[in-house]
């Protein structure tokens, strides 16, 4: 979830992932296409992909320009009576009282809009860091093998042995003020193992390919072989795991903020809002439910996106 959710995402990709990403173009059509253009051809026709892409673009716009969506401030008291019992005014679409007010009289709608930035930044940030770190470790371990591989693989096992949520709690608890960047670094520190394993596996298959042997025979340097021949071909499975994991990291951030060990004020975070809405569950459940639904929709968009990308990039699943 997040907790274990992230670990879960790892195991979910136990479904086959393409190890060598060559020759994926359909032989029947005559004109061979590359894996990427073939995947794009597939994706454009996948309703799951289109729906999730629209949702993600919407969330990105919200994260970048929250003021496009609301003129209310997420931090100021908008309702002096602080009447959280006042139910959402469903008629006032996009108004500051549209979704009602929280316990401190702040507009829930404004907090939903401004909360997108933290969630998306953490999700994307962790995924980028984890992908870079995991790919480097996995490529080195897979390509060089021997004692380097043993050492790096044991290190991966060690990090995998620590429950993700627990590790994150311990690391983050040592920081007094936790900004988005602190949370990103902490999650990346614990989360790189999954990509490292996938990258290692892919590299081990690819390094036996003829074109790698040929490049070696022609005297290409190790860096060149890794960057020009191995990396581009190992990229497909890595991207698949990374896109699916992105949703998991967003859920992890929300869970940590919910536990009070994630983002701290003044950062607006959906998980934190769920946590403050807890006391009102009996009288005003919408204070808790609205940010919960928002987190779920966001995670769902990225998971659907990842699922569609996997189906497109993995010829075996067709």
């Amino acid at each position, binding site marked *: *979830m997040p907790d274990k959710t992230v670990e879960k995402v790892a195991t979910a990709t136990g479904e086959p992932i393409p190890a060598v990403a060559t020759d994926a173009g359909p032989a029947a059509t005559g004109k061979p296409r590359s894996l990427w253009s073939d995947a794009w051809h597939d994706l454009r026709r996948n309703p799951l992909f289109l729906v999730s892409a629209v949702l993600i673009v919407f969330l990105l716009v919200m994260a970048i320009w929250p003021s496009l969506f609301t003129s209310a401030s997420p931090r100021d008291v908008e309702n002096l009576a602080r009447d959280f019992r006042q139910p959402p005014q469903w008629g006032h679409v996009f108004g500051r009282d549209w979704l009602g007010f929280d316990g401190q009289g702040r507009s829930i709608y404004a907090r939903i809009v401004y909360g997108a930035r933290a969630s998306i930044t953490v999700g994307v940030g962790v995924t980028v860091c984890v992908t870079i770190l995991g790919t480097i470790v996995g490529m080195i371990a897979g390509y060089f093998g021997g004692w380097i591989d043993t050492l790096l693989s044991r290190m991966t096992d*060690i990090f995998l042995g*620590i429950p*993700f949520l*627990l590790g994150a709690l311990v690391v983050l608890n040592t920081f007094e003020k936790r900004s988005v960047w602190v949370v990103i670094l902490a999650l990346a520190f614990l989360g790189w193992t999954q990509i490292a394993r996938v990258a290692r596996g892919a590299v081990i298959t690819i390094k036996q390919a003829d074109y790698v042997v040929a490049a070696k025979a022609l005297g290409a340097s190790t860096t060149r072989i890794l960057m020009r021949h191995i990396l581009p071909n190992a990229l497909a499975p890595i991207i698949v795991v990374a896109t699916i994991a992105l949703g998991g990291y967003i859920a992890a951030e929300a869970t940590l903020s919910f536990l009070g060990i994630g983002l701290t004020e003044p950062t607006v975070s959906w998980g934190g809002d769920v946590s403050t809405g807890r006391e009102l569950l009996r009288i005003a459940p919408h204070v808790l439910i609205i940010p919960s639904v928002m987190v779920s929709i966001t995670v769902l968009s990225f998971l659907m996106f990842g699922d569609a990308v996997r189906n497109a990039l993995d010829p075996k699943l067709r």
Partner: protein
Amino acid sequence: MGRYVIRRLLQMIPVFIGATFLIFVMVYALGDPVAALFGDKAPDPATAARIREDLGLDKPLWQQYLHYMGNIFRGDFGTAFNGQKVTELMATAFPVTAKLTLVAIVIEIVVGIALGVVSGLKRGRPLDTSLLVLTLIVISVPTFVSGYLLQYLFGLKLGWVRPTVSTDAPLNELILPGIVLALVSLAYVTRLTRTSIAENARADYVRTAVAKGLPRRRVITKHLLRNSLIPVVTFIGADIGALMGGAIVTERIFNIHGVGYQLYNGILRGNTPTVVGFVTILVLVFLVANLLVDLLYAVLDPRIRYA
């Protein structure tokens, strides 16, 4: 078989040492347990130094680690800062969480595999598609969200169950928290079983079994399911550790005084002996569960032998 187990146990040692040392460093080096002891007040430097000496905190970290591990193997997990023995805390917390995890695993296995088999056999049909979409939605709902929604619905609105669990955590009160804890994994088990069943349904041995006139039920349970379970078993094995560690959220929502509750309080209050002790046990559970899964492969698939 015996040699394989021994080799695996030997491989577990560096991982165990590494994982516990890592958590030890994170807890001790990053946090200041003495400052945590004093809460918001700043401790008097002399007193702080004396406590540090008493607890052995002035020694280098690796010495502290060795000392700590030595004690653990003698069954001494140290004392929490409130004077309670960590082993006592464990004795009350672990049975509760074990019960909760057991409920979750049973739900996960029974419901998840059943749904997966149905879905996999009806591959591409509306039922399969809607189950796939449903699992995707379930996976996207974080545990703290599903926890509150179900607690609100069944505990407060409908009043079918008690919204919080009483101290001794009887099994019938753990059913709702068990469902909450299991939900995400349940969806993964369903998806994994479905993929595996759908793949194997086209295998030659299934066609043979059908052709020689075996009843459909027998083909599915004895031939198809048994061969399709390996990825599912792998997942569930890895999940036992994750569930016990991930119970923090569920235990917090339903006010269950288990491992997650103790760990959460331990982390917040900087109660290092509690945190390190509990995590050490969790790491052990995780490693042993993974070993058992590997041994189970041979039971499921006789072609797999361990030399």
